[in-house]
Each structure stands twice: as structure tokens, then as C-alpha cells.
């Protein structure tokens, strides 16, 4: 049978090609089986752990303290307004009181803005404090459990099989175990 060099080369290459394909298909399989994907809901970690609940209580106390300051300032503004609007005041005195009221009202507005900013900052600080501890748990869990990726952004996940992928409860349990 006449064989061209080309057909001979195909004949020779076929087993080699199959061998490579086989290796490619077989080799990654064990690695794929070890690397898992997990998901943790940070909001649930905050809501369901002792650490998170304490942080929320701390934040509530902080907000109450800021509210107290705001109310105190508002009361001062109200008093000054009453004094400035009192009937029968000499013009000079009224002007002075109105000036005082304007300054106090501006200070009050500034206080409200600062309070809102401070509350936001404190919330971030407390959340970060909890999440840093949760991340330490996550890292350990990821290494031990062979997780390649653990998502923490609920918006980035379309579907989660809670039984196999959602690690929130495990993280919460572990975090509770680590906190007093």
C-alpha cells in the first residue's frame, strides 16, 4: 500500500494526541475536586454572632449619645429663639440676641452634620472590627476546608446552595467560640 509521508505522520501522531488529551482530562480532575467555592453573608455574621450583636449595641449607645448632644443643642437654640422673640425688647438687645441665635443655629446645623458623619464612621469602625475577626475565621476555614474562593458579597452571587456552599453559620459558630 502506498503511503505518503503525510499519512504516515498522521498515523504516528494519533496515539500521541490521544495520550495528551487523556492526560489533560485526567490530570486536573483531582485538583478540581479539592478546590471548593464557599459563600458567607457578612450581614448575617453581624446579626447572628455575639460579637456582632455587641457591636450593634455599642453603636446604638453611640447614636444615643449623639442624639443627646443634638437635643441639648436644639434646646439651647429654642431657648435663644424664645429670648430673641420676647416682646418689648430694646432694639439693640434684640439685635444682640438675634445674632446669638443665628450663631447658635449655625453651630447646631454643623453639629447635626458632624454627628451624622461620626455615626457613619463609628458604624464602619465597628463593622470592620467584627469583619476582621470573621475574616480570620474565614481564612482558617478556607485553608482547612480546601476552599479556593469564598464570596462575601451577596450581590455577586446569583444562587447559593445553602447546604453545600453557605458557610455563614459555620463562621458564626466559630466566631462565637472565639469571642468571650
Amino acid at each position, binding site marked *: 500500500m502506498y503511503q505518503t509521508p503525510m499519512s504516515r505522520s498522521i498515523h504516528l501522531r494519533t496515539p500521541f494526541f490521544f495520550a495528551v488529551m487523556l492526560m489533560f482530562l485526567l490530570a486536573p480532575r483531582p485538583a478540581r475536586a479539592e478546590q471548593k467555592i464557599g459563600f458567607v453573608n457578612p450581614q448575617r455574621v453581624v446579626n447572628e454572632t455575639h460579637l456582632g450583636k455587641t457591636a450593634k449595641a455599642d453603636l446604638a449607645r453611640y447614636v444615643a449619645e449623639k442624639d443627646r448632644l443634638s437635643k441639648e443643642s436644639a434646646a439651647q437654640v429654642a431657648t435663644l429663639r424664645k429670648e430673641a422673640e420676647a416682646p418689648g425688647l430694646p432694639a439693640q438687645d434684640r439685635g444682640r440676641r438675634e445674632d446669638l441665635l443665628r450663631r447658635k443655629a449655625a453651630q447646631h446645623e454643623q453639629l447635626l452634620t458632624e454627628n451624622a458623619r461620626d455615626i457613619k464612621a463609628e458604624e464602619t469602625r*465597628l463593622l470592620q472590627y467584627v469583619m476582621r475577626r470573621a475574616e480570620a475565621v474565614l481564612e482558617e476555614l478556607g485553608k482547612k476546608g480546601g476552599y479556593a474562593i469564598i464570596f462575601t458579597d451577596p450581590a455577586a452571587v446569583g444562587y447559593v446552595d445553602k447546604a453545600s456552599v453557605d458557610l455563614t453559620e459555620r463562621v458564626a459558630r466559630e466566631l462565637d467560640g472565639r*469571642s468571650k
Partner: protein
Amino acid sequence: MRSLISCIMAALLVLACAATGLAKEPGWGRVYTVRGKVTVRENPEQAALTVRVLKSGQKVRVDFEDGGWAAVFDPAETERVETRAQGYVRLAELRSEAKPGARSEAMSEAAPRPEKPDKSGKLQKSAAPDTADKGKKTESRKGAQAQSFGEIRVADRQMAVRAGRDKDTEFKRLLKAGQRARVDFQEDGWFAVFAPDEKVRELSRAWGFGRDKYLVPEKDYTGQPLPEPSEAAAKETLAKPAAAAKEIQAKPAPKQKPGASVSDAVGYTVQSRQADHLRPLAPVVLRVRIDVTAPPAPEALRKIMREIWKAERRKNEDLQVEVLLPSMDQGGLAYGVARFHDDGRIKEFWWREVVLRTKR
């Protein structure tokens, strides 16, 4: 008949013993009998939490008067320790609602008062009137009765009274060290200053404006006209240690959480002092680590922080104190944070229990 007489005699004897017992009540503070309702607060601040309300007929022992506020104790309280107080009342409110000539008032006036520790336990000048300043005190009490607004304060140094709340405004008059004045309308670190006997709360009737930090409550005045026998001792106690590691006096709060105890003296180390140069109005943040075995309860923490503020504040800086507990991260979240008014009252205070929940 004989048994009836002996019964009456026994009853009289019991009454006499009880009276003697009452007479031997601790000779400190003043006992007031409340006529109306008086609010007792957690701290000497109008905005502080109400811890109880005194009802008509109730007797209370009152001491540690400071800035128009006083600590309230059980009348039977024997120990004169501020941390045993039930709370604080506004003196004006108490006086207006208390029965005049309450029994122990005279008693405490006659008895020499002990050296008065301040809220943190430091020794301060005694508020007891000695013979030399008795006249002045009587005068001051008369003033208090006539008081219709503000409070009487004393200039702790020679100071200017100005036309406005600014040091660049027109000079109005000079207050000499020790001179009394009625003050009100506190704003931006300035008081409106009135004649001590002024009864009308009108800014137009004020002498002018003076820096509030130089106008101290009468009992806190340490200058010449009101000499104090214990001045040297007080100064010695108040001397500030030069080393970085310091010790302040702090006592546990009356309402301590179980397990949270603070020894009488609390040492602390300054960890950092940071000023935000980009925001000149932002407070200087002082982080200190306190040397305690258990986290202090919030009320004790307030007192510790106030003492630290007093010791560490430089000039007129707005100093925010942040307290770390032993073995907490130096750069991490602080356990307690406090900001202060210029006169040392706490403006803002909060603490974070979350930092206690992490095993260290």
C-alpha cells in the same frame, strides 16, 4: 398600773436611744428633707440619665458640691466616699424642694468637715467654713438664696471683662483674683459676667464677658482671699508626675458591673498624642493604656478619663481621651472615648464592649 408605767418608760428609753443614734450620724454633708420631687441623675449634668426621683418627705445626705451639683447619699451613709453616692442633684432644685432648716444642716455646719476628696478621690481643699471665712460663706449663702439665675463664681486670677466673647473686644473692667461675680450665658468658652447681687437675667445688665475657665466655683478657688488650711497637702497630692507612666486616683462607680472592679489608684501610660494638622479644629487625640486587671465600669471609666484629661491637657487644646486596656492593640479600637468641655465636664463619652468580647 406599774407594768403600764414600765412599758411607757421602756418606750421612752427606746426613743431616747434612737434619738442618740441619730445624733451620732456621720458628721459630714447635709441632710435635706425633700418636699417636692427632685430628680437624681447619674452624673452631675442636666442631660445625664435619671437614676431615681426623690419624693416628698424623703431624707437624703448631700455632699461633694461642685458647680451647682451635689452628690446624694442615703442619710445613714457613714462613709464619705463619692462613689457610694446614689447620684447627683442640682443644688438649686434640691434647695427649692427641701424643707428649710433640715436637721443635719446645722449639725454639719458645726462639725469640722473632713478633707474633701474630689470625684476621683484626690484630696482637695476642704469646703468647711473656718472662722476666718465664715462671714464670707454666710454672705455667699445669702447670695444663693437671692440667686435667680446663673451662679456665683470667683475669678481665679486677675482677668479682663470684655465687651464681647472675644479677647480682641473692648476692655470693660478688671476682675481681681478672688473677686466674686454672677455668671451666666456660657458660650464658646465665655461667660456673661454680672454683679454678684444682680437679679435680672438680661445680657444688657452684664458687666461684660469673661473667659469661663478663669471663673471658678467659690469652693474651688485656691487663691488668697479664701485661704485653705490644707492647701499645701492638696498641692502635694495634685502634683503631676513627670514620668510617662503615671498614676491617677480613681474610684469605682457606685453602680459597678459585677466583676468590674477598679483599685483606688489606676496607673496609665500615654501611647500616642495625635493632632490632625489638616483639620485644625479637630481634637487632639490622646491614647492611653490604663493599668487595670478588669475593665472599669463606665462610670468609673468616666472619672478615670476626666483625671487623665486634667493631667494631660495642654493649654486650651481640645483633647479627646481614648483609653485602651492592657494587651489591646495600640492602633485598634479603644475601650472608652471621651471629649470634654473647656471646664473639664464631659461633653461626650462612649465605650465599646465589643473590644472586651475578643479573647486576647
